[in-house]
């Protein structure tokens, strides 16, 4: 029997390209996996249309969810095995350990069941909760579990006989509700934090399927260096990395950074998300025209069983089928013809204020070209907090805790990515590039004139009062000068897209 597990009857194993085998520990878990709500994940691609750039990226949320359950469980078991006394010092009960573990396994397994077709690409089509805030897939996950899975959770004989974990508790765990209590909130960090199983799995899995090796880091090392600490300011229990594992934590951050730039925010991958969003709106408007809802071009909200049933019917297969039949409007045609919008301008990864202003100017000049913009700072792929490094006796939760950014020079100097891109329809690319070139040249000229003017006045000042001028140069505040001047802002050359996406006939 596995450590901490209450195996009941048979176990089952899935082969996994990342973890080897993922074990399903009893018939209850198997029946949850067999449930239509979970099986739908076989029909939701993890990375939407990323295969247009990386042909291997056709994996689904189904295998990722199994991977997260596996990884979260390994983390849970290792944390308990190596930090037993520290956990007991925090009043974590050995008696409830098996149940805590089961709850974590099921929440990890089900955390993504609320994804829309093509995963994050569909998030722009979620309805609004408030004027400015849309529902998130986590809320759909929680409600699908709470309202459509009680048959296989609350009513399952193995649950009724032993675990007594209601669907609502799993849903609350997924959402991080206050009612789940400290112990569950602590373990929830394994599902959602900088050190979580979700991220650990998707980096390795996406790296494997795309063939981009930058997403690799040492997962086994991470398992054995996870530790328990206390927040130095408030005493709250935290999950941290032992000091011996900080280089590996650094590798995890670098993996995330590289995968973001190379895969998740790839210029072509990003624009396909936009086209899919437009297609979904068209398809939803058509399918829901008699629904009576104010916003029929958005998914139904996760507020009633009926709406959830309707949402559940949407998956990649349905969308692809409709696309195949010629539906989806203008953007459906673009997808069928593989004539996606093309990038004509981009700021550097870390854009300064001046870079963003330049992007605004270019966007204004391109106005007539029906541009689409892509802004990394609003991307779904954001850090979830800090990785904390703990120094001290493993048995004692009172360790010296410091953020990784204080120990690692690399992490300390990593700046948030806020790159902005401008796209235009393919047939307008040449005209748009000419406008971009002209705008950048004008900006460069203006800047040069400004610089010359500044140098001339400085020279004049040095001539009259050399010491004062030198002092004022030293004390001058940092001037808002663009780092992204013409030489840095990238003008995309007038040539076909990079090789990976031109692998097939247009």
């Amino acid at each position, binding site marked *: 029997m596995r450590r901490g597990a209450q195996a009941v009857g048979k176990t089952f194993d899935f082969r996994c390209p990342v973890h080897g085998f993922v074990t399903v520990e009893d018939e209850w878990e198997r029946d949850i996996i067999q449930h239509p709500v979970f099986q739908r994940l076989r029909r939701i691609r993890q990375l939407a249309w990323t295969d247009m750039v990386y042909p291997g990226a056709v994996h689904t949320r189904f295998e990722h969810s199994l991977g997260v359950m596996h990884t979260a469980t390994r983390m849970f078991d290792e944390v308990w095995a190596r930090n037993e006394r520290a956990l007991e010092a925090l009043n974590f009960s050995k008696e409830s350990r098996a149940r805590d573990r089961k709850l974590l396994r099921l929440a990890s397994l089900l955390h993504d069941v609320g994804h829309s077709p093509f995963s994050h690409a569909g998030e722009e089509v979620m309805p609004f909760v408030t004027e400015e805030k849309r529902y998130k897939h986590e809320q759909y996950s929680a409600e699908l579990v709470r309202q459509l899975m009680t048959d296989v959770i609350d009513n399952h004989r193995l649950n009724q006989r032993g675990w007594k974990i209601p669907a609502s508790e799993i849903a609350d765990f997924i959402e991080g509700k206050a009612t789940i209590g400290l112990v569950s909130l602590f373990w929830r*960090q394994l599902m959602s934090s900088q050190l979580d199983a979700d991220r650990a799995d998707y980096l390795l899995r996406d790296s494997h399927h795309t063939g981009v090796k930058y997403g690799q880091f040492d997962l086994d090392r991470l398992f054995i260096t996870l530790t328990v600490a206390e927040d130095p300011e408030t005493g709250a229990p935290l999950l941290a990395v032992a000091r011996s594992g900080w280089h590996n934590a650094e590798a995890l951050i670098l993996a995330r950074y590289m995968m973001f730039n190379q895969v998740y925010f790839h210029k072509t991958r990003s624009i396909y998300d936009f086209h899919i969003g437009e297609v979904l709106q068209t398809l939803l408007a058509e399918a829901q025209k008699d629904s009576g809802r104010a916003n029929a071009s958005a998914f139904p909200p996760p507020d009633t069983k009926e709406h959830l049933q309707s949402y559940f019917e949407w998956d990649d297969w349905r969308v692809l089928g409709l696309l195949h039949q010629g539906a989806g409007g203008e953007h459906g045609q673009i997808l069928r013809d593989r004539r996606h919008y093309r990038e004509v301008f981009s700021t550097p990864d870390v854009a300064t204020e001046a870079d963003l202003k330049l992007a*605004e100017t270019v966007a204004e000049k391109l106005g007539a070209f029906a541009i689409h913009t892509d802004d990394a700072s609003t991307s779904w792929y954001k850090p979830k907090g800090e990785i904390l490094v703990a120094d001290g006796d493993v048995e004692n939760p009172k360790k010296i805790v410091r953020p990784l950014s204080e120990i690692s020079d690399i992490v300390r100097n990593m700046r948030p990515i806020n790159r902005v891109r401008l796209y235009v329809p393919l047939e307008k690319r040449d005209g748009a590039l000419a406008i971009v070139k002209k705008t950048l040249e004008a900006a460069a000229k203006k800047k040069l004139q400004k610089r010359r003017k500044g140098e001339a006045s400085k020279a004049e000042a040095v001539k009259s009062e050399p010491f004062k001028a030198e002092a004022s140069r030293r004390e001058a*505040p940092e001037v808002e000068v663009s780092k992204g001047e013409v030489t840095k802002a990238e003008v995309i050359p007038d040539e076909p897209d990079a090789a990976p996406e031109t692998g097939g006939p247009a």
Partner: protein
Amino acid sequence: MKITFAIPWPRYGLIADLTCRNYERANYFGKTALQKQVYLLQTLFGVDCGYDFGLHTYGPFSAQLLADLDALSFMGGVTVENDPSIGGYRILPGERCDYVRKEARDFLEASEESIVNVVEEFGPRYAKDLELLATTVYAEREALLNGTPPLEDELADVVSHLKPHFSKEFIREAIRDLRDRSHIATR
């Protein structure tokens, strides 16, 4: 078509402004205080700061707010210093603090009264107390989603499960204190 990719000055300006105001009053202003003061400003005073808060073992927390603090620190709006005496981080005004506040002038002027109130009321509190108060507010707001305010006992139970290192009586006092100031409602 006017498209803007502006730096989020209102958010950066808010962090800079809170840093300056706490600094002027000699309040200890670290990462916990920043998170909790912004949460309370948004939740109790209805100032839309644009942050999504989730509940963590250390109370309400927004990853976006932390990312903004990093970005603002790189920009020179604030300085984040390690303070070994408490094992945490002190946030101090940076050399470009005033510049950032100026850029966010419209937002800061519109929210000034609420910001002043938050700093006056919660600025002098210890991080540990702020964590308890913010967690209590979070639990109460969550309970309100069910339609009616929670019973005091119910709320005390929920908070006690989240913060077992505080005595039940201390938690009840915190609840009453918040209720007396009309920040939360209980039955």
